């Protein structure tokens, strides 16, 4: 069982890293969007491996469907054909970005493995307990939805309500900002209409 779990983890992690690299380095922006769908679905697979079924389904619904559709609409609404091939910038900040992210990766790797020593041991520097088999069976038969729902409506009820206000404000703000300003139109299409 452990070997199968490990195989699934490495397969999903490989697909996830390749898809995330594809989002950054694919030349056309539409291919990046498709690669992003693959990355989000792989993240949902990682969540399933971590006994988080509700979060995995929410990940697919929100990220892999919702946000991706909004991104594809933005791609279709903006950009001329020549601009859909904008790739990475060849500027000094590119080298800077490679250096920063590489240094960050090495630093965090050094930290989570306690100076590369913990790779040889089973334990971790964090106080972890491997989930027992009974708890995992309960989670896999009953699901995590009940526990998350209870936590959301008892302990975290105030952040939950604030979050609903935030979503309302985000919807209203998006409508206000994306609405056409009728007073000063600089849009080329409306200039054509004025010339008529």
């Amino acid at each position: 069982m452990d070997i199968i779990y490990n195989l699934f983890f490495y397969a999903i992690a490989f697909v996830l890293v390749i898809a995330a690299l594809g989002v950054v380095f694919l030349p056309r922006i539409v291919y990046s969007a498709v690669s992003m769908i693959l990355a989000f679905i792989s993240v949902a697979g990682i969540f399933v491996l971590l006994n988080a079924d509700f979060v995995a389904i929410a990940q697919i619904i929100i990220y892999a469907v919702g946000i991706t559709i909004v991104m594809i609409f933005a791609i279709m609404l903006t950009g001329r054909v020549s601009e859909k091939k904008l790739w990475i910038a060849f500027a000094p900040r590119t080298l800077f970005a490679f250096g920063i992210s590489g240094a960050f990766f090495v630093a965090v790797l050094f930290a989570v493995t306690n100076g590369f020593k913990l790779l040889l041991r089973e334990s971790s520097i964090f106080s972890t307990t491997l989930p027992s088999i009974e708890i995992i069976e309960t989670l896999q038969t009953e699901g995590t939805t009940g526990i998350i729902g209870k936590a959301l409506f008892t302990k975290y009820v105030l952040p939950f309500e604030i979050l609903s206000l935030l979503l309302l404000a985000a919807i209203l703000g998006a409508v206000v900002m994306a609405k056409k300003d009728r007073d000063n139109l600089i849009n080329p299409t409306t200039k054509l209409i004025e010339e008529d």
Partner: protein
Amino acid sequence: MSIIEVILKIFNVGLTHYLILGTILFCIGILGLIISRNVIRVLMSIEILLCAVNINFVAFANYSDINNIQGQVFAIFIMAVAAAEAALGLAILLSLYRNKPTVDTEEMKELKG
């Protein structure tokens, strides 16, 4: 301890492996955030950053807080904030595109950035 046992121990998946995966995703996100020339790709990189954080939260919830999984609750919160951020970011992008029809980050220099 033979070499094969050491290799098997290193590749046995635990919390550390999930943290390393989250770190790799985070670094890719930062890289894409800085080096890409398309504004929509910058927004995609931000979503990848938030996914990396979610992986860390859920991994800690599984390995150290399995009885009352609070990391998953925080992952749900982060997802809601990410949805709001995507909607607002794309609204700003559309409004910017209406004033200056380009999605090139090199052309957006009005703030002297």
